[in-house]
Protein backbone atom coordinates (compact mmCIF):
# COMPACT_ATOMS: atom_id res chain seq x y z
CA UNK A 1 0.00 0.00 0.00
CA UNK A 2 2.76 2.50 0.94
CA UNK A 3 4.69 1.59 -2.18
CA UNK A 4 1.57 2.30 -4.20
CA UNK A 5 1.03 5.69 -2.53
CA UNK A 6 4.65 6.70 -3.05
CA UNK A 7 4.54 5.70 -6.69
CA UNK A 8 1.33 7.68 -7.25
CA UNK A 9 2.79 10.73 -5.50
CA UNK A 10 5.94 10.45 -7.59
CA UNK A 11 3.94 10.49 -10.81
CA UNK A 12 1.88 13.33 -9.36
CA UNK A 13 4.99 15.42 -8.73
CA UNK A 14 6.12 14.81 -12.29
CA UNK A 15 2.72 15.91 -13.58
CA UNK A 16 2.75 19.06 -11.47
CA UNK A 17 6.18 19.90 -12.85
CA UNK A 18 4.94 19.36 -16.41
CA UNK A 19 1.89 21.46 -15.64
CA UNK A 20 4.02 24.34 -14.38
CA UNK A 21 5.99 24.37 -17.63
CA UNK A 22 2.82 24.17 -19.69
CA UNK A 23 1.14 27.03 -17.80
CA UNK A 24 4.26 29.17 -18.06
CA UNK A 25 4.50 28.43 -21.76
CA UNK A 26 0.85 29.32 -22.41
CA UNK A 27 1.01 32.54 -20.40
CA UNK A 28 4.39 33.91 -21.46
CA UNK A 29 5.19 32.66 -24.89
CA UNK A 30 2.01 34.21 -26.20
CA UNK A 31 1.60 36.81 -28.88
CA UNK A 32 0.64 40.23 -27.61
CA UNK A 33 2.15 42.50 -25.03
CA UNK A 34 1.34 41.91 -21.35
CA UNK A 35 1.49 45.68 -20.84
CA UNK A 36 -1.66 46.04 -22.96
CA UNK A 37 -3.49 44.64 -19.95
CA UNK A 38 -2.40 47.57 -17.78
CA UNK A 39 -2.52 50.47 -20.22
CA UNK A 40 -5.16 49.28 -22.65
CA UNK A 41 -4.67 49.20 -26.43
CA UNK A 42 -4.97 53.01 -26.65
CA UNK A 43 -2.64 53.74 -23.75
CA UNK A 44 -0.06 51.47 -25.39
CA UNK A 45 0.25 53.78 -28.40
CA UNK A 46 1.10 56.72 -26.12
CA UNK A 47 3.86 54.78 -24.37
CA UNK A 48 7.38 55.54 -25.59
CA UNK A 49 9.77 52.68 -26.21
CA UNK A 50 11.91 53.65 -23.18
CA UNK A 51 8.89 53.75 -20.88
CA UNK A 52 7.79 50.38 -22.18
CA UNK A 53 11.19 48.85 -21.51
CA UNK A 54 11.40 50.30 -18.01
CA UNK A 55 7.97 48.94 -17.13
CA UNK A 56 8.91 45.53 -18.50
CA UNK A 57 12.09 45.70 -16.41
CA UNK A 58 10.13 46.63 -13.31
CA UNK A 59 7.71 43.74 -13.73
CA UNK A 60 10.56 41.34 -14.39
CA UNK A 61 9.30 40.62 -17.88
CA UNK A 62 12.51 41.71 -19.59
CA UNK A 63 14.63 38.89 -18.18
CA UNK A 64 15.27 35.68 -20.12
CA UNK A 65 12.32 33.28 -19.94
CA UNK A 66 14.26 30.66 -18.01
CA UNK A 67 15.10 33.22 -15.29
CA UNK A 68 11.44 34.26 -15.14
CA UNK A 69 10.40 30.64 -14.84
CA UNK A 70 12.69 29.93 -11.90
CA UNK A 71 11.69 33.18 -10.24
CA UNK A 72 8.10 32.02 -10.52
CA UNK A 73 9.00 28.69 -8.91
CA UNK A 74 10.55 30.65 -6.02
CA UNK A 75 7.35 32.70 -5.72
CA UNK A 76 5.37 29.48 -5.51
CA UNK A 77 7.74 28.06 -2.90
CA UNK A 78 7.37 31.21 -0.79
CA UNK A 79 3.61 30.78 -0.83
CA UNK A 80 3.08 34.26 -2.29
CA UNK A 81 2.36 33.12 -5.86
CA UNK A 82 3.10 36.46 -7.46
CA UNK A 83 1.13 39.66 -7.46
CA UNK A 84 -1.71 41.15 -9.38
CA UNK A 85 -1.20 44.06 -11.76
CA UNK A 86 -4.05 45.88 -10.11
CA UNK A 87 -4.38 44.85 -6.47
CA UNK A 88 -2.08 45.07 -3.49
CA UNK A 89 -2.99 41.55 -2.35
CA UNK A 90 -0.72 38.68 -3.40
CA UNK A 91 -2.34 35.73 -5.14
CA UNK A 92 -1.58 33.57 -2.10
CA UNK A 93 -3.54 35.90 0.17
CA UNK A 94 -6.37 36.07 -2.33
CA UNK A 95 -6.63 32.29 -2.44
CA UNK A 96 -6.71 32.09 1.35
CA UNK A 97 -9.45 34.74 1.53
CA UNK A 98 -11.66 33.57 -1.33
CA UNK A 99 -10.80 29.89 -1.57
CA UNK A 100 -12.83 28.64 1.41
CA UNK A 101 -16.11 29.82 -0.12
CA UNK A 102 -15.44 27.95 -3.36
CA UNK A 103 -14.29 24.88 -1.43
CA UNK A 104 -17.53 24.92 0.60
CA UNK A 105 -19.55 25.19 -2.60
CA UNK A 106 -17.65 22.27 -4.13
CA UNK A 107 -18.03 20.02 -1.09
CA UNK A 108 -21.71 20.80 -0.61
CA UNK A 109 -22.31 20.09 -4.30
CA UNK A 110 -20.60 16.70 -4.04
CA UNK A 111 -22.75 15.80 -1.03
CA UNK A 112 -25.86 16.88 -2.93
CA UNK A 113 -24.87 14.84 -5.96
CA UNK A 114 -24.55 11.65 -3.87
CA UNK A 115 -27.73 12.28 -1.91
CA UNK A 116 -29.68 12.72 -5.14
CA UNK A 117 -27.74 10.48 -7.53
CA UNK A 118 -27.37 7.23 -5.59
CA UNK A 119 -31.00 6.60 -4.52
CA UNK A 120 -32.13 7.51 -8.02
CA UNK A 121 -29.63 5.04 -9.49
CA UNK A 122 -30.84 2.26 -7.17
CA UNK A 123 -34.47 2.83 -8.16
CA UNK A 124 -33.42 2.82 -11.81
CA UNK A 125 -31.19 -0.23 -11.66
CA UNK A 126 -33.60 -2.45 -9.73
CA UNK A 127 -36.23 -2.06 -12.43
CA UNK A 128 -34.35 -1.45 -15.67
CA UNK A 129 -36.45 -0.06 -18.52
CA UNK A 130 -39.42 0.65 -16.27
CA UNK A 131 -41.25 3.97 -16.42
CA UNK A 132 -39.26 5.25 -13.43
CA UNK A 133 -35.98 4.18 -15.02
CA UNK A 134 -36.74 5.85 -18.32
CA UNK A 135 -37.93 8.99 -16.55
CA UNK A 136 -34.74 9.16 -14.49
CA UNK A 137 -32.58 8.65 -17.55
CA UNK A 138 -34.37 11.35 -19.50
CA UNK A 139 -34.07 13.86 -16.65
CA UNK A 140 -30.38 13.07 -16.23
CA UNK A 141 -29.77 13.59 -19.95
CA UNK A 142 -31.45 17.00 -19.70
CA UNK A 143 -29.36 17.88 -16.64
CA UNK A 144 -26.20 17.12 -18.63
CA UNK A 145 -27.26 19.51 -21.39
CA UNK A 146 -28.27 22.50 -19.29
CA UNK A 147 -25.35 24.91 -18.80
CA UNK A 148 -24.95 25.45 -15.05
CA UNK A 149 -24.43 29.18 -15.30
CA UNK A 150 -27.66 29.59 -17.24
CA UNK A 151 -29.59 27.56 -14.66
CA UNK A 152 -27.98 29.79 -12.03
CA UNK A 153 -29.14 32.97 -13.78
CA UNK A 154 -32.66 31.56 -14.06
CA UNK A 155 -32.71 30.66 -10.35
CA UNK A 156 -31.52 34.15 -9.37
CA UNK A 157 -34.19 35.74 -11.57
CA UNK A 158 -36.89 33.33 -10.45
CA UNK A 159 -36.23 33.93 -6.75
CA UNK A 160 -36.14 37.66 -7.29
CA UNK A 161 -39.41 37.89 -9.21
CA UNK A 162 -41.21 35.07 -7.45
CA UNK A 163 -40.27 35.80 -3.84
CA UNK A 164 -38.43 39.10 -3.92
CA UNK A 165 -35.43 37.23 -2.50
CA UNK A 166 -31.80 37.87 -3.29
CA UNK A 167 -28.94 36.00 -1.63
CA UNK A 168 -26.65 38.28 0.41
CA UNK A 169 -23.73 39.56 -1.62
CA UNK A 170 -21.17 40.06 1.11
CA UNK A 171 -18.51 37.46 1.76
CA UNK A 172 -18.99 35.65 5.04
CA UNK A 173 -17.00 33.35 7.28
CA UNK A 174 -18.58 29.94 7.80
CA UNK A 175 -18.35 29.91 11.60
CA UNK A 176 -19.12 33.55 12.32
CA UNK A 177 -22.13 33.71 10.11
CA UNK A 178 -23.36 30.26 9.11
CA UNK A 179 -26.79 31.36 7.86
CA UNK A 180 -25.44 34.04 5.53
CA UNK A 181 -22.77 31.69 4.24
CA UNK A 182 -25.31 28.99 3.58
CA UNK A 183 -27.49 31.45 1.66
CA UNK A 184 -24.51 32.36 -0.51
CA UNK A 185 -23.28 28.85 -1.23
CA UNK A 186 -26.54 26.96 -1.54
CA UNK A 187 -27.40 28.34 -5.00
CA UNK A 188 -24.09 27.55 -6.75
CA UNK A 189 -23.83 24.24 -4.87
CA UNK A 190 -27.33 23.24 -6.02
CA UNK A 191 -26.60 24.05 -9.67
CA UNK A 192 -23.23 22.28 -9.64
CA UNK A 193 -24.62 19.37 -7.60
CA UNK A 194 -27.45 18.69 -10.04
CA UNK A 195 -24.99 18.53 -12.91
CA UNK A 196 -22.85 15.99 -11.05
CA UNK A 197 -25.85 14.02 -9.82
CA UNK A 198 -26.73 13.23 -13.42
CA UNK A 199 -23.28 11.73 -14.04
CA UNK A 200 -23.28 9.93 -10.68
CA UNK A 201 -26.72 8.42 -11.29
CA UNK A 202 -25.72 7.25 -14.76
CA UNK A 203 -22.51 5.66 -13.56
CA UNK A 204 -24.05 4.11 -10.43
CA UNK A 205 -26.91 2.68 -12.49
CA UNK A 206 -24.71 0.95 -15.05
CA UNK A 207 -22.30 -0.21 -12.35
CA UNK A 208 -25.14 -1.65 -10.26
CA UNK A 209 -26.62 -3.40 -13.27
CA UNK A 210 -23.26 -5.06 -13.86
CA UNK A 211 -22.73 -6.07 -10.22
CA UNK A 212 -26.24 -7.47 -9.83
CA UNK A 213 -25.41 -10.12 -12.43
CA UNK A 214 -22.37 -11.34 -10.47
CA UNK A 215 -22.26 -14.79 -8.88
CA UNK A 216 -21.89 -13.59 -5.31
CA UNK A 217 -25.10 -11.58 -5.60
CA UNK A 218 -26.91 -14.66 -6.85
CA UNK A 219 -25.41 -16.69 -4.00
CA UNK A 220 -26.56 -14.14 -1.46
CA UNK A 221 -30.05 -14.28 -2.84
CA UNK A 222 -29.99 -18.10 -3.03
CA UNK A 223 -29.12 -18.39 0.63
CA UNK A 224 -32.32 -16.49 1.37
CA UNK A 225 -31.22 -12.92 1.95
CA UNK A 226 -33.94 -10.36 1.20
CA UNK A 227 -33.57 -8.28 -1.95
CA UNK A 228 -33.06 -5.09 0.00
CA UNK A 229 -30.26 -6.55 2.11
CA UNK A 230 -28.54 -8.01 -0.94
CA UNK A 231 -28.44 -4.59 -2.53
CA UNK A 232 -27.32 -2.84 0.61
CA UNK A 233 -24.67 -5.34 1.77
CA UNK A 234 -23.41 -7.03 -1.36
CA UNK A 235 -24.21 -5.12 -4.51
CA UNK A 236 -23.95 -1.46 -3.50
CA UNK A 237 -20.49 -1.43 -1.83
CA UNK A 238 -18.93 -3.03 -4.89
CA UNK A 239 -20.91 -0.96 -7.35
CA UNK A 240 -19.81 2.27 -5.68
CA UNK A 241 -16.08 1.90 -6.48
CA UNK A 242 -16.28 3.40 -9.98
CA UNK A 243 -18.69 6.03 -8.62
CA UNK A 244 -16.07 7.20 -6.12
CA UNK A 245 -13.51 7.54 -8.91
CA UNK A 246 -15.98 9.49 -11.01
CA UNK A 247 -16.94 11.71 -8.11
CA UNK A 248 -13.32 12.67 -7.54
CA UNK A 249 -12.83 13.57 -11.17
CA UNK A 250 -16.10 15.49 -11.19
CA UNK A 251 -14.96 17.48 -8.15
CA UNK A 252 -12.13 18.83 -10.27
CA UNK A 253 -14.54 19.77 -13.02
CA UNK A 254 -16.80 21.42 -10.44
CA UNK A 255 -13.95 23.74 -9.49
CA UNK A 256 -13.80 24.80 -13.13
CA UNK A 257 -17.57 24.87 -13.52
CA UNK A 258 -17.85 27.15 -10.51
CA UNK A 259 -16.15 29.95 -12.47
CA UNK A 260 -19.16 30.77 -14.70
CA UNK A 261 -21.61 29.68 -12.00
CA UNK A 262 -20.08 32.04 -9.43
CA UNK A 263 -20.35 34.80 -11.98
CA UNK A 264 -24.03 34.00 -12.55
CA UNK A 265 -24.77 34.15 -8.83
CA UNK A 266 -22.30 36.95 -8.08
CA UNK A 267 -20.64 34.74 -5.46
CA UNK A 268 -17.39 36.29 -4.17
CA UNK A 269 -15.35 33.08 -4.36
CA UNK A 270 -12.20 32.02 -6.18
CA UNK A 271 -14.12 31.37 -9.40
CA UNK A 272 -15.22 34.99 -9.47
CA UNK A 273 -11.61 36.05 -8.94
CA UNK A 274 -10.66 33.96 -11.96
CA UNK A 275 -13.38 35.66 -14.01
CA UNK A 276 -12.09 39.07 -12.94
CA UNK A 277 -8.49 38.16 -13.70
CA UNK A 278 -9.32 36.86 -17.16
CA UNK A 279 -11.23 40.04 -17.98
CA UNK A 280 -8.50 42.31 -16.70
CA UNK A 281 -5.97 40.23 -18.68
CA UNK A 282 -4.00 39.99 -15.47
CA UNK A 283 -1.48 37.37 -16.56
CA UNK A 284 0.24 36.98 -13.18
CA UNK A 285 -2.98 36.18 -11.35
CA UNK A 286 -4.18 33.92 -14.18
CA UNK A 287 -0.89 32.04 -14.36
CA UNK A 288 -0.96 31.28 -10.65
CA UNK A 289 -4.65 30.47 -10.40
CA UNK A 290 -4.54 28.16 -13.42
CA UNK A 291 -1.53 26.42 -11.91
CA UNK A 292 -3.23 26.09 -8.52
CA UNK A 293 -6.43 24.72 -10.04
CA UNK A 294 -4.39 22.15 -11.97
CA UNK A 295 -2.46 21.15 -8.83
CA UNK A 296 -5.70 20.69 -6.90
CA UNK A 297 -7.09 18.65 -9.79
CA UNK A 298 -4.00 16.40 -9.84
CA UNK A 299 -4.08 15.99 -6.04
CA UNK A 300 -7.77 15.06 -6.15
CA UNK A 301 -7.04 12.38 -8.73
CA UNK A 302 -4.23 10.95 -6.60
CA UNK A 303 -6.46 10.99 -3.53
CA UNK A 304 -9.18 9.13 -5.36
CA UNK A 305 -6.68 6.54 -6.62
CA UNK A 306 -5.41 5.98 -3.08
CA UNK A 307 -8.92 5.68 -1.65
CA UNK A 308 -9.83 3.16 -4.35
CA UNK A 309 -6.66 1.16 -3.76
CA UNK A 310 -7.44 1.15 -0.05
CA UNK A 311 -10.97 -0.07 -0.68
CA UNK A 312 -10.06 -2.57 -3.38
CA UNK A 313 -6.97 -4.73 -2.66
CA UNK A 314 -6.98 -6.07 -6.25
CA UNK A 315 -5.71 -2.70 -7.48
CA UNK A 316 -2.89 -2.16 -5.02
CA UNK A 317 -1.36 -5.60 -5.63
CA UNK A 318 -1.20 -5.14 -9.37
Amino acid at each position, binding site marked *: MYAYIIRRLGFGALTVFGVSILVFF*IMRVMPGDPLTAIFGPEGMTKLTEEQRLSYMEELGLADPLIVQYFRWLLDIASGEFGRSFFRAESVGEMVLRRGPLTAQIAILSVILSWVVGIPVAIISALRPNSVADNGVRFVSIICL*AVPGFWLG*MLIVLGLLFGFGYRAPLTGAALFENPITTLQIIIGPAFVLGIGQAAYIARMARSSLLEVIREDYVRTARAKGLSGQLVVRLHALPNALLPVITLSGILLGFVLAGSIPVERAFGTPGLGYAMFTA*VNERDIFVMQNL*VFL*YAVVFVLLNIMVDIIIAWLDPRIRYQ
Partner: protein
Amino acid sequence: MTENLADTPIVKTDVAPPSLAVRVWRAIAHFARRSPMSAVWGVIAIAIVLMAVSAPIIAPHDPLKSNFRTMQKPPSAENLFGTDQIGRDTLSRTIHGSRTSLIVAISAVLIGTTGGALWGLASGFLGGRFDIISQRIIEFLQAFPDLILAMAIAMALGSGTTTVIIAIAITRIPFGGRVIRSVVLSLKEMAFVEAARSLGASNLRIMALHILPQCIAPYLILATTHLGVAIIIEASLGFLGVGIPPPTPTWGNMLSDALNAGLVPPWWLVFFPGAAITITVLAFNLFGDGIRDVLDPRLRGSV
Protein backbone atom coordinates in the same frame (compact mmCIF):
# COMPACT_ATOMS: atom_id res chain seq x y z
CA MET B 1 -32.59 -8.85 -41.76
CA THR B 2 -32.27 -6.57 -38.79
CA GLU B 3 -29.87 -8.88 -37.01
CA ASN B 4 -27.66 -9.12 -40.08
CA LEU B 5 -27.37 -5.38 -40.34
CA ALA B 6 -26.62 -5.08 -36.66
CA ASP B 7 -23.55 -7.23 -37.06
CA THR B 8 -22.30 -5.40 -40.13
CA PRO B 9 -19.32 -3.17 -39.47
CA ILE B 10 -19.96 0.30 -40.79
CA VAL B 11 -17.16 0.24 -43.28
CA LYS B 12 -17.12 -2.80 -45.46
CA THR B 13 -14.87 -2.67 -48.43
CA ASP B 14 -14.88 -6.18 -49.81
CA VAL B 15 -18.57 -6.75 -50.57
CA ALA B 16 -20.03 -5.11 -53.67
CA PRO B 17 -22.81 -2.85 -52.37
CA PRO B 18 -26.15 -2.30 -54.15
CA SER B 19 -25.45 1.43 -54.51
CA LEU B 20 -24.36 4.17 -52.20
CA ALA B 21 -27.75 5.89 -52.00
CA VAL B 22 -29.51 2.65 -51.14
CA ARG B 23 -26.96 1.82 -48.48
CA VAL B 24 -27.21 5.25 -46.88
CA TRP B 25 -31.00 5.06 -46.94
CA ARG B 26 -30.94 1.60 -45.37
CA ALA B 27 -28.56 2.77 -42.68
CA ILE B 28 -30.86 5.69 -41.84
CA ALA B 29 -33.94 3.45 -41.77
CA HIS B 30 -32.09 1.01 -39.55
CA PHE B 31 -31.03 3.83 -37.23
CA ALA B 32 -34.59 5.15 -36.97
CA ARG B 33 -35.92 1.67 -36.17
CA ARG B 34 -33.27 0.93 -33.57
CA SER B 35 -33.64 4.17 -31.64
CA PRO B 36 -36.60 6.28 -32.76
CA MET B 37 -36.04 8.79 -29.97
CA SER B 38 -32.51 9.52 -31.14
CA ALA B 39 -33.74 9.76 -34.72
CA VAL B 40 -36.14 12.52 -33.64
CA TRP B 41 -33.33 14.39 -31.91
CA GLY B 42 -31.12 13.74 -34.93
CA VAL B 43 -33.70 15.54 -37.06
CA ILE B 44 -33.69 18.42 -34.56
CA ALA B 45 -29.88 18.53 -34.70
CA ILE B 46 -30.02 18.69 -38.49
CA ALA B 47 -32.67 21.43 -38.26
CA ILE B 48 -30.34 23.45 -36.01
CA VAL B 49 -27.52 23.02 -38.50
CA LEU B 50 -29.84 24.17 -41.33
CA MET B 51 -30.88 27.14 -39.18
CA ALA B 52 -27.25 28.09 -38.71
CA VAL B 53 -26.49 27.80 -42.42
CA SER B 54 -29.48 29.88 -43.50
CA ALA B 55 -29.34 32.36 -40.60
CA PRO B 56 -29.22 35.53 -42.76
CA ILE B 57 -32.32 34.39 -44.67
CA ILE B 58 -34.54 33.30 -41.79
CA ALA B 59 -33.58 35.90 -39.18
CA PRO B 60 -36.37 38.53 -39.22
CA HIS B 61 -34.03 41.42 -38.37
CA ASP B 62 -30.41 42.42 -38.69
CA PRO B 63 -28.73 41.00 -35.54
CA LEU B 64 -26.33 43.94 -35.30
CA LYS B 65 -28.71 46.81 -36.04
CA SER B 66 -29.90 48.64 -32.96
CA ASN B 67 -33.24 50.38 -32.86
CA PHE B 68 -33.48 53.08 -30.25
CA ARG B 69 -37.27 53.12 -30.31
CA THR B 70 -37.48 49.53 -29.10
CA MET B 71 -34.91 49.26 -26.34
CA GLN B 72 -35.20 46.39 -23.87
CA LYS B 73 -38.79 45.57 -24.86
CA PRO B 74 -40.39 42.27 -23.76
CA PRO B 75 -41.41 39.73 -26.42
CA SER B 76 -44.03 41.11 -28.83
CA ALA B 77 -45.42 40.35 -32.29
CA GLU B 78 -42.68 42.44 -33.89
CA ASN B 79 -39.82 41.01 -31.78
CA LEU B 80 -40.85 37.51 -30.79
CA PHE B 81 -38.01 37.11 -28.28
CA GLY B 82 -37.93 40.77 -27.21
CA THR B 83 -35.05 43.20 -27.68
CA ASP B 84 -31.83 43.92 -25.80
CA GLN B 85 -30.49 47.09 -24.15
CA ILE B 86 -29.73 48.81 -27.43
CA GLY B 87 -32.80 47.56 -29.26
CA ARG B 88 -31.37 44.61 -31.19
CA ASP B 89 -33.77 41.76 -31.92
CA THR B 90 -33.06 38.82 -29.60
CA LEU B 91 -34.61 36.24 -31.95
CA SER B 92 -32.32 37.26 -34.81
CA ARG B 93 -29.33 37.31 -32.48
CA THR B 94 -30.18 33.86 -31.15
CA ILE B 95 -30.48 32.49 -34.69
CA HIS B 96 -27.16 34.04 -35.69
CA GLY B 97 -25.67 32.78 -32.44
CA SER B 98 -26.23 29.20 -33.62
CA ARG B 99 -23.88 29.96 -36.47
CA THR B 100 -20.92 30.95 -34.33
CA SER B 101 -21.62 28.21 -31.85
CA LEU B 102 -21.71 25.46 -34.48
CA ILE B 103 -18.77 26.77 -36.49
CA VAL B 104 -16.64 26.83 -33.36
CA ALA B 105 -17.84 23.46 -32.03
CA ILE B 106 -17.54 21.61 -35.34
CA SER B 107 -14.11 23.03 -36.16
CA ALA B 108 -12.83 22.38 -32.66
CA VAL B 109 -13.97 18.76 -32.82
CA LEU B 110 -12.67 18.28 -36.36
CA ILE B 111 -9.25 19.59 -35.33
CA GLY B 112 -9.00 18.48 -31.70
CA THR B 113 -10.82 15.17 -31.52
CA THR B 114 -9.49 14.07 -34.90
CA GLY B 115 -5.95 15.16 -34.09
CA GLY B 116 -6.13 13.44 -30.72
CA ALA B 117 -7.58 10.30 -32.27
CA LEU B 118 -4.83 10.08 -34.89
CA TRP B 119 -2.22 10.69 -32.22
CA GLY B 120 -3.78 7.98 -30.07
CA LEU B 121 -3.81 5.64 -33.07
CA ALA B 122 -0.12 6.19 -33.74
CA SER B 123 0.94 6.02 -30.11
CA GLY B 124 -1.13 2.91 -29.39
CA PHE B 125 0.07 1.12 -32.49
CA LEU B 126 3.73 2.09 -32.46
CA GLY B 127 4.15 1.74 -28.70
CA GLY B 128 7.63 2.05 -27.24
CA ARG B 129 9.21 5.37 -26.37
CA PHE B 130 6.87 7.37 -28.59
CA ASP B 131 3.92 5.96 -26.69
CA ILE B 132 5.42 6.70 -23.27
CA ILE B 133 6.23 10.32 -24.15
CA SER B 134 2.81 10.80 -25.73
CA GLN B 135 1.12 9.45 -22.65
CA ARG B 136 3.01 11.90 -20.43
CA ILE B 137 2.09 14.88 -22.62
CA ILE B 138 -1.54 13.79 -22.66
CA GLU B 139 -1.40 13.46 -18.88
CA PHE B 140 -0.13 17.02 -18.57
CA LEU B 141 -2.97 18.24 -20.78
CA GLN B 142 -5.46 16.23 -18.74
CA ALA B 143 -4.21 17.74 -15.51
CA PHE B 144 -6.43 20.75 -16.25
CA PRO B 145 -10.18 20.81 -16.06
CA ASP B 146 -11.05 21.57 -19.72
CA LEU B 147 -12.74 24.92 -19.13
CA ILE B 148 -9.70 26.27 -17.27
CA LEU B 149 -7.29 25.16 -19.97
CA ALA B 150 -9.53 26.71 -22.63
CA MET B 151 -9.76 29.97 -20.64
CA ALA B 152 -5.99 30.19 -20.24
CA ILE B 153 -5.32 29.55 -23.93
CA ALA B 154 -8.09 31.86 -25.12
CA MET B 155 -6.83 34.63 -22.88
CA ALA B 156 -3.21 34.14 -23.88
CA LEU B 157 -3.95 34.18 -27.62
CA GLY B 158 -6.39 37.12 -27.42
CA SER B 159 -10.06 37.00 -28.30
CA GLY B 160 -11.31 35.92 -31.70
CA THR B 161 -13.02 33.03 -33.48
CA THR B 162 -9.78 31.23 -34.41
CA THR B 163 -8.48 31.55 -30.87
CA VAL B 164 -11.59 30.06 -29.35
CA ILE B 165 -11.49 27.19 -31.85
CA ILE B 166 -7.83 26.47 -31.03
CA ALA B 167 -8.47 26.71 -27.28
CA ILE B 168 -11.36 24.24 -27.37
CA ALA B 169 -9.59 21.95 -29.85
CA ILE B 170 -6.59 21.58 -27.52
CA THR B 171 -8.86 20.51 -24.66
CA ARG B 172 -10.33 17.78 -26.90
CA ILE B 173 -6.97 16.21 -27.80
CA PRO B 174 -6.37 14.10 -24.66
CA PHE B 175 -9.87 12.60 -24.70
CA GLY B 176 -9.60 11.61 -28.36
CA GLY B 177 -6.12 10.25 -27.75
CA ARG B 178 -7.01 8.15 -24.72
CA VAL B 179 -10.09 6.47 -26.15
CA ILE B 180 -8.68 5.64 -29.56
CA ARG B 181 -5.39 4.45 -28.07
CA SER B 182 -7.17 1.90 -25.89
CA VAL B 183 -9.20 0.70 -28.89
CA VAL B 184 -6.00 0.34 -30.93
CA LEU B 185 -4.20 -1.52 -28.14
CA SER B 186 -6.79 -4.28 -28.24
CA LEU B 187 -7.02 -4.25 -32.05
CA LYS B 188 -3.33 -4.64 -32.70
CA GLU B 189 -3.23 -8.02 -30.96
CA MET B 190 -5.79 -9.42 -33.39
CA ALA B 191 -5.06 -12.04 -35.99
CA PHE B 192 -5.76 -9.84 -39.01
CA VAL B 193 -2.96 -7.47 -38.01
CA GLU B 194 -0.56 -10.36 -37.67
CA ALA B 195 -1.73 -11.69 -41.03
CA ALA B 196 -1.10 -8.33 -42.69
CA ARG B 197 2.32 -8.10 -41.10
CA SER B 198 3.27 -11.59 -42.20
CA LEU B 199 2.39 -10.57 -45.74
CA GLY B 200 4.98 -7.83 -45.42
CA ALA B 201 2.74 -4.80 -44.89
CA SER B 202 4.42 -1.71 -43.46
CA ASN B 203 3.36 -0.05 -40.21
CA LEU B 204 1.82 2.85 -42.10
CA ARG B 205 -0.15 0.51 -44.35
CA ILE B 206 -1.48 -1.53 -41.43
CA MET B 207 -2.47 1.60 -39.55
CA ALA B 208 -4.20 3.22 -42.52
CA LEU B 209 -5.89 0.19 -44.07
CA HIS B 210 -6.50 -2.23 -41.20
CA ILE B 211 -6.65 -0.32 -37.93
CA LEU B 212 -8.10 3.03 -39.00
CA PRO B 213 -11.39 1.66 -40.41
CA GLN B 214 -12.04 -0.12 -37.11
CA CYS B 215 -11.59 3.14 -35.24
CA ILE B 216 -14.26 4.99 -37.17
CA ALA B 217 -17.17 3.81 -35.01
CA PRO B 218 -15.64 4.88 -31.68
CA TYR B 219 -14.44 8.09 -33.32
CA LEU B 220 -17.94 9.02 -34.55
CA ILE B 221 -19.38 8.35 -31.11
CA LEU B 222 -16.66 10.42 -29.47
CA ALA B 223 -17.04 13.26 -31.95
CA THR B 224 -20.79 13.66 -31.45
CA THR B 225 -20.36 13.67 -27.66
CA HIS B 226 -17.57 16.22 -27.99
CA LEU B 227 -19.79 18.49 -30.08
CA GLY B 228 -22.07 18.99 -27.09
CA VAL B 229 -19.13 19.59 -24.75
CA ALA B 230 -17.55 22.04 -27.20
CA ILE B 231 -20.80 24.02 -27.46
CA ILE B 232 -20.99 24.35 -23.68
CA ILE B 233 -17.32 25.38 -23.39
CA GLU B 234 -17.78 27.94 -26.16
CA ALA B 235 -20.81 29.37 -24.36
CA SER B 236 -18.95 29.44 -21.03
CA LEU B 237 -15.98 31.24 -22.62
CA GLY B 238 -18.36 33.78 -24.14
CA PHE B 239 -20.09 34.19 -20.80
CA LEU B 240 -16.74 34.78 -19.06
CA GLY B 241 -15.69 37.38 -21.62
CA VAL B 242 -12.89 35.41 -23.29
CA GLY B 243 -14.93 34.05 -26.15
CA ILE B 244 -15.77 35.65 -29.45
CA PRO B 245 -16.08 39.37 -28.68
CA PRO B 246 -19.21 41.45 -29.30
CA PRO B 247 -20.85 42.67 -31.48
CA THR B 248 -20.83 39.20 -33.11
CA PRO B 249 -23.75 37.48 -31.38
CA THR B 250 -22.94 34.22 -29.60
CA TRP B 251 -25.14 32.58 -27.01
CA GLY B 252 -22.45 33.00 -24.38
CA ASN B 253 -21.77 36.70 -24.91
CA MET B 254 -25.53 37.40 -25.15
CA LEU B 255 -25.92 35.98 -21.63
CA SER B 256 -22.89 37.94 -20.49
CA ASP B 257 -24.35 41.16 -21.98
CA ALA B 258 -27.61 40.49 -20.18
CA LEU B 259 -25.76 40.26 -16.88
CA ASN B 260 -23.68 43.36 -17.60
CA ALA B 261 -26.73 45.43 -18.47
CA GLY B 262 -27.79 46.11 -14.92
CA LEU B 263 -28.50 44.57 -11.58
CA VAL B 264 -31.56 42.70 -12.77
CA PRO B 265 -31.35 41.33 -16.30
CA PRO B 266 -34.67 41.12 -18.20
CA TRP B 267 -35.86 37.51 -18.32
CA TRP B 268 -36.10 37.24 -22.10
CA LEU B 269 -32.45 38.18 -22.53
CA VAL B 270 -31.52 35.35 -20.17
CA PHE B 271 -34.03 32.70 -21.14
CA PHE B 272 -33.76 32.42 -24.93
CA PRO B 273 -29.99 32.15 -25.53
CA GLY B 274 -29.66 29.60 -22.71
CA ALA B 275 -32.60 27.58 -24.00
CA ALA B 276 -30.90 27.56 -27.41
CA ILE B 277 -27.73 26.15 -25.85
CA THR B 278 -29.68 23.50 -23.94
CA ILE B 279 -31.70 22.31 -26.93
CA THR B 280 -28.66 22.18 -29.20
CA VAL B 281 -26.54 20.25 -26.71
CA LEU B 282 -29.45 17.92 -25.94
CA ALA B 283 -29.96 17.24 -29.64
CA PHE B 284 -26.30 16.41 -30.27
CA ASN B 285 -25.97 14.31 -27.11
CA LEU B 286 -29.05 12.20 -27.80
CA PHE B 287 -28.15 11.85 -31.46
CA GLY B 288 -24.72 10.70 -30.31
CA ASP B 289 -26.22 8.20 -27.88
CA GLY B 290 -28.28 6.78 -30.74
CA ILE B 291 -25.25 6.50 -33.00
CA ARG B 292 -23.41 4.71 -30.20
CA ASP B 293 -26.24 2.27 -29.55
CA VAL B 294 -26.49 1.38 -33.23
CA LEU B 295 -22.78 1.22 -34.03
CA ASP B 296 -21.46 -0.44 -30.92
CA PRO B 297 -23.64 -1.10 -27.88
CA ARG B 298 -20.62 -2.38 -25.96
CA LEU B 299 -19.30 1.17 -25.70
CA ARG B 300 -22.33 2.27 -23.68
CA GLY B 301 -21.04 4.37 -20.80
CA SER B 302 -17.40 4.13 -21.71
CA VAL B 303 -17.10 7.09 -24.07
